[in-house]
């Protein structure tokens, strides 16, 4: 008798019984634990993304009537001179990120081996990363002011004040000055990432190389560089997309004056000062498309370059997931 009821219970479970079972609990926990993050993700990322796409076809402000204008906003973006010159500015930021990565790599390599006072050097160079953007803005407005910090330091090294340019006004140099602040802020963070990567290299490799008589440079070229190849490639990809979307240095230091406006600074101005929401949305969509195109092209490029290494990898998909995760982590760290 008892056996029979058990059998019938397995066949037909009421909703309440299902809810008390393991499977029911599992679904309940999944829903309870995921609903909040998914709602937040939807409301603050995907909804605005979709809305922005919609906005880009309208002539509108934040409040008031909106009028459908088709692709006119997109055409208008391409007609604006400031948008194009802004994209040209991003070349400076790309140059800056190359310098930044090379510098970080050099310093990371040096600091990965025994160095007296290594952690103090590391701390000094990393600290700028922890300063908030507005403070960085003030620090560098002050730093670059005529006759102030930078000029004084250069004078210690024998430069004459008359020969020095106005760092933030002179259009031939001001973008470089701004890129310098960005390099200043992030090279230490890059360095810490690279040190982490170098530390994860098996130390027996170094010992073996030492025994074989490899010098420091050879160790770098043949052990360190290949082992941390992935993280370097990731940083290159990130820095190129990051250069296209550069925003902070001009926004907080010059407000985009004197030809320092990057694409996003101009977009911010159009969106929030002039309130031309449609045009600004079109600008954002265009840049996003450029960034995605650039990301895909770079991925294909690096895949081609490192194909031999990838071929050996049986777990290609798992690897790709991890790469994406790294990309995201780095991005969020910025």
């Amino acid at each position, binding site marked *: 008798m008892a056996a029979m009821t058990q059998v019938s219970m397995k066949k037909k479970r009421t909703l309440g019984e299902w809810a008390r079972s393991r499977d029911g609990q599992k679904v309940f926990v999944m829903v309870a634990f995921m609903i909040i*993050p998914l709602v937040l993700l939807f409301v603050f990322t995907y909804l605005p993304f979709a809305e922005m796409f919609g906005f880009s076809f309208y002539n509108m402000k934040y409040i008031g009537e909106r009028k459908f204008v088709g692709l006119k906003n997109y055409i208008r973006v391409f007609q604006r001179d400031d948008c194009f010159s802004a994209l040209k500015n991003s070349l400076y930021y790309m140059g800056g990120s190359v310098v930044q990565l090379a510098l970080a790599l050099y310093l990371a390599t040096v600091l990965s081996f025994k160095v007296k006072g290594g952690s103090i050097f590391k701390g000094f160079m990393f600290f700028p990363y922890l300063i908030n953007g507005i403070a960085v803005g003030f620090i560098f407005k002050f730093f670059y002011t005529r006759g102030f910090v930078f000029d004084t330091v250069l004078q210690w090294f024998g430069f004459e004040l008359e020969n020095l340019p106005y760092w933030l006004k002179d259009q031939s140099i001001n973008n470089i000055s701004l890129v310098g602040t960005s390099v200043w802020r992030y090279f230490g963070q890059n360095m810490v990432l690279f040190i982490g990567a170098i530390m994860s290299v098996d130390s027996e490799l170094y010992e073996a190389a030492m025994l074989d008589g490899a010098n420091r440079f050879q160790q770098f070229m043949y052990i360190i560089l290949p082992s941390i190849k992935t993280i370097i490639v990731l940083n290159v990809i990130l820095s190129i997309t990051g250069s296209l979307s550069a925003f902070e240095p001009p926004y907080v230091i010059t407000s985009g004056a004197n030809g320092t406006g990057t694409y996003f600074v101009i977009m911010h101005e159009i969106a929030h000062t002039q309130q031309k929401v449609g045009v600004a949305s079109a600008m954002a969509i265009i840049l996003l498309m450029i960034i995605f195109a650039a990301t895909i092209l770079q991925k294909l490029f690096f895949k081609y370059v490192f194909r031999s290494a990838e071929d050996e990898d049986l777990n290609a998909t798992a690897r790709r997931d991890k790469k994406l995760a790294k990309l995201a982590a780095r991005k969020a760290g910025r």
Partner: protein
Amino acid sequence: MTNLQKIGSYALTVLKYLSLVFFSFVAIIPVVSCVITAFKTDTEYQNTNVMVFPESWLYFENFVQAFERANMGRGFINSIIILVSVLVISTFVGTQLAYVLNRFKFPGNGLIRSLFLFASLLPGVAMQVSLYAIMHGMGFINSLWGYIILMCGTDVISIYIYIQFFENISISLDESAIVDGASYFTIFYRILLPLLKPAIVTSCILKGVNTYNEYYAANLYLQDKKLLPTVATSLYTFVGPLGSKYNLICAGVIISLLPALVLFITCQKQIYSGLTSGAVKG
């Protein structure tokens, strides 16, 4: 080693230390100049070069003035409220999500991970154009809670730190608890969450620094600068007529970065490992 090799290796060592000293100098000189200037009186500031040390390192008037004028007291209170709420909420939200994504296999698991990854690749500034309209629609302009919820929603990196950590916690722990009849909630809160502590500390430090330093969204959505400044946005006070009183501004800047400095000195290791753990392993 021959003599030539010896000389070469000495030269390399000298070069190595020279470059380290040089770049450390580059990294700290902007901040040091700010500290120097923050201790100068108005007349001293006007009459001496910026790199000349102040007469007295005990002249704190600028700090007092900056603190009052920029309403930094209010800023610290708001920043603390924001920080505590964001860290508590996002720790729960993030660990729970990571638990489900790591321990349960279900259709859509990969899709959800991809959705979070893709979201993190969208540049934040671009999204604000339409996000502003949405925040406006929900009545989240000039609302501390609106801002807090926004800050909880845009978090991706900690989810990845947690998922990685879960991967290293043996699943047999869960299984034996299930055999003992524990519910999934019990397993998560009683068994796994305590084990997750190092990951939580790491991700809270990173998230905390980012939240404390956030100024763009704070400026956009917390427009009432009298009642709702954060430490970072309170510095905007110095943009207007006070814009050339750098002794005051520098004092404000120094005050705003003191908490980050203290955190850095006390938790240096966790900060470094937090940055690398999200990025390097795997």
